[in-house]
């Protein structure tokens, strides 16, 4: 019995050796395969390195010497990642894109108001215009000085118009980017929902095995989505991920998606949101039921992602009658430029008409019609200018609606800086002299009288009320330009700091996440060497086992 027993044990040991060695060969091959795949995907964005989980093989064989073991088995191949770090990375990516989406647009404003920009020349053009008036006041009948006033006035109007139009173009660019980004969000949410379906299907079928590659792809898509909007995710038990905006609206719910839409005429408004360029801005909405839209603009603007950043730059409003009622960075700057245009259309035109607070009758030297200001300035032809005589607008006609003879009734439902123009083209038609005969209907003037030119020139040293829809400031004209420059500088600097801060945060979390999931080729090569060595050892074991059996066979 002892012999039988020993013989039985011997054959059992050989089988065990062979079995263990064989399982080791398989395990090391699997490790080599995973290391190869890791190296192959070392540069694949969003790839999480894989590791083979090995476990001691167990058996239902309850014979003696269980302690000898049954070899090794491949328990699983898993992705190495960190969901908390990934979540933080999504949040920081949203924040970074919130700031970086505005960066290039704000840098355009920075350049616009920089030393070589049109807006940067604003102060110089204003000064040149008033200097030309000071020169004309010295020698008002000089056609050279008069021509200079026309040239500088036209340049000033052009500069204000171009500056405003550049702001309008930046707003339009932001709006176009929003349309583009909304489209990208819809593409991404659609892809995420498709992957949700595939992951749930695969994992249901394969039980213990995860759809590693699909999960990697979905994580990469979520990271791309975070560039556009800020969201929360919830993973369900079947492996699907739902994507919720900050107000709880689900863009992705399992395999279903809710599309974002960019519309100028959603169901909740009667008139489109006016843009600085005269067109319409788009609301970002979702359509929960046919024809019933919910505005997401405010929610997105206050959260993160590039769409939020672009909305903050471009501006949003529940409703607005003027493009300047919209609340956004670029609109805030545009209001100041608009106030300059309105100053030239009102105060400057009023002084040009001969209004002078030092004169009797409330500034009206020729009170022909009671309650109506009668012009007292005269050009070299003996004519007096109309209500909007020096600066006017193209495209719309400004009228003295209340009939008081003063240019003080500008419309508030339209922008005027984009339409500003200098009206006088004939030097002799510049009304620089004052009517010296107060009798209504009788004009007497001296061609060398530069009283009106001097009064106009003095405007830049005085405080005035500068106003535009949602903006009011009392001070000098140079203060308004300074205010604009300060605001642009602050916007750009603040954005630059926020972008740098967010960028550092994204870099930090990317690095931390990469430390966990990234492929280190040296590490993989070390694993390959290690696996190769163990593979060789397992091969040796098979040979040894073979030798053992052969020895026994030779005995027989």
């Amino acid at each position, binding site marked *: 019995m002892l012999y039988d027993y020993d013989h039985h044990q011997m054959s059992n040991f050989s089988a065990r050796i062979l079995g263990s060695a064989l399982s080791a060969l398989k395990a090391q091959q699997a490790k080599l395969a995973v290391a190869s795949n890791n190296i192959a995907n070392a*540069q694949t964005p969003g790839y999480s390195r894989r590791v083979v989980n090995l476990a001691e093989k167990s058996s239902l064989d309850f014979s003696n010497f269980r302690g000898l073991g049954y070899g090794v088995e491949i328990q699983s191949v898993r992705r190495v990642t960190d969901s908390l770090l990934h979540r933080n990375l999504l949040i920081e990516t949203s924040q970074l894109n919130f700031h970086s989406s505005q960066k290039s647009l704000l840098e355009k404003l920075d350049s616009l108001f920089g030393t070589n920009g049109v807006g940067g020349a604003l102060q110089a053009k204003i000064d040149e215009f008033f200097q030309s008036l000071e020169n004309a006041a010295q020698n008002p009948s000089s056609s050279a000085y008069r021509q200079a006033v026309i040239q500088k006035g036209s340049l000033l109007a052009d500069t204000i118009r171009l500056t405003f139009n550049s702001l309008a173009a930046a707003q339009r660019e932001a709006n176009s980017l929003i349309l583009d980004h909304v489209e990208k969000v819809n593409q991404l949410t659609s892809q995420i929902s498709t992957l949700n379906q595939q992951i749930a299907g695969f994992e249901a079928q394969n039980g213990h095995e995860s759809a590693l590659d699909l999960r990697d792809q979905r994580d990469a898509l979520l990271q791309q989505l975070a560039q556009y909007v800020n969201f929360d995710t919830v993973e369900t038990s079947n492996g699907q991920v739902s994507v919720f905006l900050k107000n709880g609206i689900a863009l992705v719910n399992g395999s279903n998606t809710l599309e974002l839409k960019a519309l100028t005429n959603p169901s909740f408004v009667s008139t489109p949101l006016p843009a600085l360029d005269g067109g319409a801005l788009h609301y970002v909405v979702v359509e929960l039921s046919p024809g019933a839209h919910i505005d997401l603009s405010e929610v997105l603007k206050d959260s993160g992602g590039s769409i939020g950043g672009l909305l903050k730059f471009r501006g949003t409003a529940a409703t607005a009658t003027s493009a300047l009622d919209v609340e956004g960075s670029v609109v805030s700057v545009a209001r100041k430029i608009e106030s300059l245009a309105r100053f030239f259309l009102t105060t400057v035109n009023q002084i040009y008409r001969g209004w002078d607070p030092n004169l009797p009758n409330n500034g009206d030297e020729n009170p022909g019609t009671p309650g109506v200001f009668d012009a007292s300035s005269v050009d070299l032809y003996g004519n007096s200018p109309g209500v909007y005589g020096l600066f006017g607008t193209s495209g719309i006609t400004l009228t003295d609606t209340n009939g008081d003879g003063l240019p003080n009734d500008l419309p508030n439902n339209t922008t005027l800086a984009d339409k500003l123009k200098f009206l006088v083209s004939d030097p002799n038609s510049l009304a620089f002299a004052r009517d*010296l005969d107060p009798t209504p209907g009788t004009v007497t003037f001296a061609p060398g009288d530069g009283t009106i030119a001097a009064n106009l020139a003095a405007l830049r040293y005085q405080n005035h009320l500068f106003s535009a829809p949602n903006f009011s400031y009392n001070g000098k004209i140079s203060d308004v330009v300074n*205010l604009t420059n300060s605001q642009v500088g602050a916007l750009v*600097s603040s954005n630059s700091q926020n972008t740098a801060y967010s960028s550092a945060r994204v870099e930090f979390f990317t690095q931390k996440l*990469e430390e966990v999931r990234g492929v280190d*080729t040296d590490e993989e*090569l070390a694993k390959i060497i290690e696996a190769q060595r163990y593979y060789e050892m397992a091969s040796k074991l098979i040979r040894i086992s073979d030798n053992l059996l052969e020895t026994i066979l030779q005995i027989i």
Partner: protein
Amino acid sequence: MTRVPDSIRFGTLLSGIYNHKREFDRAAKEVSSGKRVFAPSDSVNYPQIVAHEAKLQDISSFKSRIESLRGYFAFVEENLAQANNVLVRAKEIAVQAANETLDPAARERLSHEVFALRDHLVRLANSTYQGQYIWGGADSDDPPFDALTYTVPASGPASQRYVFDAEPGTNVFNKVKVSYDFEVTVGAHGGDTFSRAIGALERLGRALAGYSTNPPTGLPNGTGSAYSFPTDYPLQTQAIRQAIDLLEEARANDIGNQRTIVGSKMTRLDIAEKLITMDKDASLEFLAKERDSDIAEAATRLTRSDQLLQASYQVLARISRLSLIDFI
């Protein structure tokens, strides 16, 4: 043990290279332009920089205007100096003529020079600067003194009279800004400056030529009559002596006052120029401090970023060669 995957290693290096490139470009821009502020975000003082640049432009404009006004006032001063000389010479003639040893014929000969002096004075009063009558106020396209005639005589120099044409605008004067705090009034009332002097010369010339002028005091009104000699010889002498007083009054009070005013305006221009020069210096100092680049410092940064960039390239090239694969 912290893992360092390849993506981090290369990403960090690339990020460093981008930063060095940015620093290099920035330093190169500062060195080549001589400025370090180009846009509102470059400095919190950008609005002040713009304001100071605008101030320099204003100062340039003020300076140009001051130079132009200096030319103008030099011309006016010369005009008044000549008028003063005319009156001094006229007074000499009047003093000579008042001597009762001269008979009416000798006095009549002196009248020719007096009328010539009067015509010269009228030319001075009607002179133009850059096409504008300087003594016409805002009525600058019209000669301030118009030629009229006396009833007696009907012809000849003694019949000529010149009267200030008080058209609208002759008492309107333009004020020119020559600094932020100073403005200068350009022009003066031609009537107040020259009327009495021209009137005095006319009275003297007509008296020497043998005609009385009405009224006996004040500005001539264009009437008068011929003296009858020898009866009216004392009246002629009296008229010549009165003319001496009138000439002196016109010279001292009208021409002289105006010269004083012009002199004070020239002084005002000098003060304004000094003030704006101080303003200019302050603005230039501010701009040098806040806007202009420190070339040495920028050049150092340029060199430093260049070296760092080269070092980054070398490290990247070396690291890309380092791998376990080479040792297997």
